[in-house]
């Protein structure tokens, strides 16, 4: 097991696992307390359209997926703020159309696309240095925003009506949370894949919520739990030669079941 650590791809896997855990712990907490899980799921799947476009035009996958996910997040923020009563329909629509765009563009891309499956189930063992820089940059941005606008974000998340009344630009923060979610979803796709990203954004968060008395603590515990699940999942995946993303999620789910069985009350 230990000799594996000298390989660069293993080092990158561990580092990216850690970075994604921090991002998903913080942003996942915001997604859960703001009840945006379905929205985040929509954005995750829509970003597949960005992957297709990026493959077709030969631009970096992260860039393509990020831009597409941001566009989806802005569109969903706009629809949520202006057409609230129909939002579930619109999310479903954007979700499906985004994926369809992705599939069509992958079809039109010449050559053999061996990468495709890796976006559905993640490819943490194929994380490049450039990916690490991107993830690191995003984590810094997220921590920066949460640190300096914590009180506004807390107020908007807990009681948006009151926040609005006190002159906070609720729509701006709501959109900001969605855009950050979109970016976090994109980097989480690299680690656990499109299908499983929502599990990473909810399972550790669910456990953390029960253990926390403040949003800050919830973010911190979520990040720790995510990191633990990701590393344990990686070890399982390495020793049993299983798909990494699915291993991470099953480890998380197993821990959640244990937690539910043994927690008091």
């Amino acid at each position, binding site marked *: 097991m230990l000799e594996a650590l000298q390989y660069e791809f293993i080092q990158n896997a561990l580092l990216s696992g850690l970075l994604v855990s921090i991002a998903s712990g913080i942003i996942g907490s915001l997604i859960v307390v703001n009840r945006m899980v379905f929205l985040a799921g929509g954005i995750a799947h829509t970003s597949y359209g960005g992957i297709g476009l990026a493959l077709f035009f030969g631009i970096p996958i992260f860039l393509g997926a990020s831009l597409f996910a941001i566009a989806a997040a802005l569109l969903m923020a706009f629809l949520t703020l202006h057409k609230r009563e129909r939002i579930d329909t619109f999310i479903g629509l954007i979700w499906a159309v985004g994926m369809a765009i992705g599939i069509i563009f992958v079809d039109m891309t010449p050559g053999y696309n061996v990468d495709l499956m890796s976006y559905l189930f993640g490819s943490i063992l194929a994380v490049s240095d450039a990916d690490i820089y991107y993830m690191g940059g995003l984590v810094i941005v997220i921590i920066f925003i949460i*640190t300096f606008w914590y009180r506004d974000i807390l107020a908007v998340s*807990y009681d948006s009506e009151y926040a609005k009344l*006190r002159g906070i630009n609720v729509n701006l923060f709501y959109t900001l949370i969605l855009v950050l979610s979109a970016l976090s979803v994109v980097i989480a796709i690299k680690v656990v894949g499109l299908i499983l990203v929502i599990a990473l954004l909810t399972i550790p968060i669910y456990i953390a919520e029960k253990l926390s008395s403040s949003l800050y603590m919830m973010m911190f515990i979520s990040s720790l739990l995510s990191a633990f699940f990701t590393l344990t999942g990686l070890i399982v995946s390495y020793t049993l030669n299983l798909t990494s993303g699915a291993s991470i999620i099953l480890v998380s789910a197993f821990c959640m079941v244990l937690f539910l069985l043994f927690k008091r009350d």
Partner: protein
Amino acid sequence: MKAIEIKNVNFAYEDELVLENINLEVEERDFLAIIGPNGGGKSTLFKLILGLLQAQNGEIKIFGQKIKKSLSTLGYVPQNTNVNTHFPIKVIEVVLMGHIGDKPPLIGYRKEEIACATNALKQVGMEKFAHKKIGELSGGQRQRVMIARALCAHPKILLLDEPTSNIDATGQKQIYELLQKLNQNITVVVVSHDLSIILEYATKVAHINKNLAYHDISEHKKRKFFTKDEHFCEVELLQMLGR
């Protein structure tokens, strides 16, 4: 100067007229109860005063100024304090929300803000619960926390929407006694359908059902509404308010 001045206000959702030609003046340190049937427009009037809705015509002034300019003089306690009870937030953090909108420090909250929030919790008798999770409190305790949050912003007018709708009888009495105490310095406006309890404490009452009927209830008049066993007769009041 009038605390709240409402002149010829009409409001309609789409084509349905909810409030018609509303005129109302609230003096400083009044304790105004807004009563009326469900769907009568109580909450709508409230939202108009808070600037959450815009009237189609007429004007509303707070201490002689437009609402947008006077938001800082308004303290608001929402109707449903049972939302988001699973939210991981401490009582003190909820109260500190009263300070958002003020110029923030670089990180977190100022010392004065924390002192002010602690003081507000003392005023409502909840300082012992400062570090409890909001979900662990009872409905009445949560309502007090929301009042503390409103007080934290140093309002001149405190607006409460159905403050006792989810609270048992003892809790209701405590809330109103607290409001009466606060009323020594602050104008209080309460929307409620708990007629019997609110009229013990209110000094003025406005009945809204699309239109508004307004009455000053001095001590002398108030006595008339209570029968010998101190039980309040709603029918007589509604007659007086001209239904």
